């Protein structure tokens, strides 16, 4: 696997749209070619070379490419978005859409990410070793298909509207979340190790949410149906099983109504 290292040499005055900073765009290119890739700042089209010092060269395909980004990326959008393979490590906080529409590969951010990161994640591994903003792993605005595959792990806290319209995959939040976790969820699995503010699993059709901490206010559409002993992300514990959201539509399978599950650690 070949490695390309990007070091920020100049900060954008507005925000930079780094949709060309991912393993797929770099694949098969040398440092000089990568420096020529375009990046929008408002209506102005600049190149990656204007903002980054680029060393190394990419592999022949995305899967053979590793990208390391050093320096302050708080004004860079779309880092690692739409990547399908390979590896990318960002050693700083990044702005919006980081790792959105990812289909494969491994993306690690050693810092915080802003809102709309991991949108509609379809595959691969996305790890945030910091905090995340709102709409983490949610659907793009107006879409009914949120995160559908892959693993998204946040070491810190996340904001509101996390995993909205989730239809598959697994999300692990090791810290706390604000309101609206898993709203409109229709599949997949969310593991929340900290606390949630309110409105967990509102309008949830299918899927599983595991909460290790507390929820400030429980949704009225959830009803406890028993207890279960389970091992969740390496922790063995007893969980109270709630069915829901009883105010939402639910499909039938083999004549039986399928509900979503909210498991609260005892």
């Amino acid at each position: 696997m070949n490695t390309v290292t990007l070091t920020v040499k100049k900060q954008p005055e507005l925000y930079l749209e780094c949709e060309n900073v991912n393993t797929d765009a770099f694949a098969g290119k040398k440092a000089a070619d990568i420096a020529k890739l375009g990046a929008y700042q408002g209506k102005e089209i600049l190149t990656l070379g204007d903002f980054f010092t680029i060393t190394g060269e990419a592999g022949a395909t995305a899967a053979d490419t590793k990208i390391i980004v050093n320096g302050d990326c708080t004004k860079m959008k779309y880092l690692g978005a739409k990547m399908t393979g390979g590896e990318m490590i960002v050693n700083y906080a990044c702005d919006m859409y980081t790792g959105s529409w990812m289909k494969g590969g491994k993306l690690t951010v050693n810092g915080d990410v802003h809102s709309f990161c991991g949108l509609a994640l379809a595959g691969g591994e996305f790890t945030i070793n910091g905090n995340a903003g709102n709409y983490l792993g949610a659907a793009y605005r107006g879409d009914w298909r949120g995160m559908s595959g892959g693993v998204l792990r946040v070491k810190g806290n996340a904001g509101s509207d996390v995993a909205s319209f989730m239809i598959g995959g697994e999300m692990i939040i090791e810290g706390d979340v604000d309101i609206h976790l898993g709203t409109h969820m229709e599949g997949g699995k969310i593991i929340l190790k900290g606390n949630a503010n309110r409105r967990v699993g509102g309008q949830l059709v299918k899927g599983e949410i595991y909460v290790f901490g507390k929820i400030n206010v429980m949704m009225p559409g959830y009803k406890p149906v028993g207890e279960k002993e389970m091992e969740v992300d390496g922790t063995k514990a007893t969980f109270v099983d709630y069915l829901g959201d009883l105010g939402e539509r639910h499909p039938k399978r083999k004549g039986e109504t399928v509900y979503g599950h909210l498991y609260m650690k005892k």
Partner: protein
Amino acid sequence: MPKEVTDVICPFCGTLCDDLIVSVSDDNKTILGVKNACAIGAEKFNHQRQPGRVKRPRMRQADGSYKEITYDEAIDWTAKMLVKSRKTLMYGWASTSCQAMSIGHEIAEKCGAIVDNCATVCHGSSLIAIEDVGVPSCTLGEVKNRADRVVFWGCNPAHAHPRHMSRYSIFPRGFFTVKGHKGRKIYCVDCRYTDTAKCADEFIQVQQGFDYELLNAFRTAARGEALPDTVGGVPKEKIYEIVEDLKQARFGIIFFGMGLTHTMGRNHNIDIAINLTRDMNDFTKFAIMAMRGHWNVTGSGQVLGWQYGFPYAVDVSRRDQARHQTGETTSVDLLNRNEVEACFYIATDPGAHFPVDAMISSSRKPTVTIDPHINCTTEISDIHIPVALVGVEVGGCAYRMDNVPIETRKVVDPPEGVLTDEELLTRINKRVDELMAKGGA
């Protein structure tokens, strides 16, 4: 001999009352009186004759004072600002006509700007919910002629849309609602006992920030499932009783306002209210409608929606695509994050409505404001360009809150030499073309 202009469209709120009668002086220059309008609507016409109106563009000087300049100078300055800026916020549009908007959007496309309207601090959250789950709605005429269950949730038309209740929602007698008020059951859900609540048959006081939970409880009750004893301060017996009554409706309507759009959860409150409406359609006919405030803000959503597919916060800074993301391309976020380089405000007063931090950020950028009046925004602008009052001094198309387009009427002439929005934007557009042909500002 003063003459009377009838069937005038009111240029104030989203109700767009179309039965105003305006008395105009002989020379067609002064409005003498307004009949049928509410107090706010009448004031809109009375402004026309107020002394001290700005009739020529003004430019801010280094010492903070304003100097009168010509329209040509103002147009040249504005066009240069738009061409030079890498990202411009073009915000407002709610008090102008759809025709003016379409010219504005042409400028935005050429100059790589972001077009946003008042929905961004108003019913934007309703529009997000509609993008997510759609909306089963109707026209106000249907409400007047059919509705026998009316729910006002988090809105107070008694103050915000003063003639809404008498024209459409509570009192009028319609084709199938011959008994008027007596034939309708009115519910008001709010955290305060408002003046609208006083007109309602039943007032449901919900704890602030618990609308989502209460709507969820309504949906759960409609499916016959069990509920906790109280939800948001409302006993479960009451919830079951109301849901059963709503199911008995021949035609039900939910009107909602800022009480849902600007409390915890915002778009999710609307989202679940829309889904409750959808659920009620399993039993009867039900519709839901946003109480749009600013006059033609619905029209701005319509024109943007028709041209770009998004109703507000449309980013056309990149030539290849139009983008929209609430939280990113919305005015307040753009200003707070310093993501734009210049501001162009038209037909709205963000200075009075935006958070202070956003306006502090705006005041540090080159700013042009196009507005007939002096307002909070004109005072932090580099240039203030006065224009004719749309709906009073010039006609044009406007959309009512139920998305019905209405052609507004001109009742008096604008002051001599004052341009209309359309004329001004056309000239700015032409100047932008000239500058771009020369290769920039």
